[in-house]
């Protein structure tokens, strides 16, 4: 995996959409706080569509928007 991770494609995290404010710790990516799950899904989809990006749903409920 180490070798593979150094190969293209490289991923860039564009945004993180979370339901918990305390998980917004900074970084270069856009970090957004959603009030509820419905809003979180809509925000994620809107950004992903606009940026033509992929979405990862993390086990803790946060969404990551990443682009190859």
């Amino acid at each position, binding site marked *: 995996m180490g*070798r*593979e991770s150094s*190969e*293209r*494609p490289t991923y860039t995290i564009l945004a993180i959409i979370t339901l918990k404010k305390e998980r917004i710790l900074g970084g270069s990516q856009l970090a957004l706080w959603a009030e509820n799950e419905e809003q979180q*899904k809509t925000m*994620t*989809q809107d950004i*992903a569509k606009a940026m033509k990006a*992929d*979405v*990862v*749903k993390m086990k803790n409920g946060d*969404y*990551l928007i*990443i682009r190859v």
Partner: protein
Amino acid sequence: MKENIISTDHLIIIVTATIVGTMARALTIKEDFRQYPTYPNGYLIHLVTGFVAASLGAVAIPALMTKNFVAVTFLALAIQQFRDVRKAEKESLKDLENTESAYRGDAYIDGIAKTFEARNYFALIVSFTTALTIQLVDSKFISINVMSGTITGLIVLYVIKRFSKGKTLGDIADVKEGKIEVRESELFVDGIFVSNLLGTENAANMFQKEGLAVVIIPREEHFRIALDHYGQRQAALFEATRAVGVKRYHFTRKEYEKGKIVITLVPIIKDVNKLIEAVKKTPVLESVKKSHSVMDTNLFGRE
């Protein structure tokens, strides 16, 4: 004035050898399922370089026969020219990388470029042996000279074509359709985790409904090394995307327990047989190949 003009015998040698050599290049331009090079310009470029290679091979024997030994050094020029063909091919394919559905990868590009270089040597060797045969036969009937030269050239072409023919993934592994399963936002194929990039419901539904997957299973334990190579998997993925197109998403994943490789995507044309065929016909890259029998030998270096 007339002694400065090339003799008829030599002219026959040069023309026959050049035609047979160029024909050898023309016969080795493939338009197969990989669709490369398909375009008229691609054909023309390779036919012309093949013609140049064949001409160089054809004039070597007449040059020697007229004691023009220095002229044979132009074969060194040929080598340089072929290397340039390889370089040009490599640059051209690398330039296209960002426009393809999936990357070919450096290992695959290197393999393709080497093949193009090698095929110019085909033209050179075939035309050289054709010329040599005509010179050796040296019959008073032109037709016998031409026929013998052409036949020898074609036999040589057949032999070197067989010699340079590589293996494909279908020779070393079984390729079967895989069962796609989406658990929440995670994608599994035949129970093998592939990706968690299906974070939205749309993505999960799309993959579940339209996704295609194949699993590559190595026939022998040592074939796992070749299949595990990132460049090799990238090449297989590229061929898969080329064959059925990509609507969205394409992934490749390896499984360590049995060395299975998963290739999965959402295709434009949902035809699993086409996908299996494309993966099976992906060449085993030269840079990946390891000779298993050589690894086993115990000739030197071990007590």
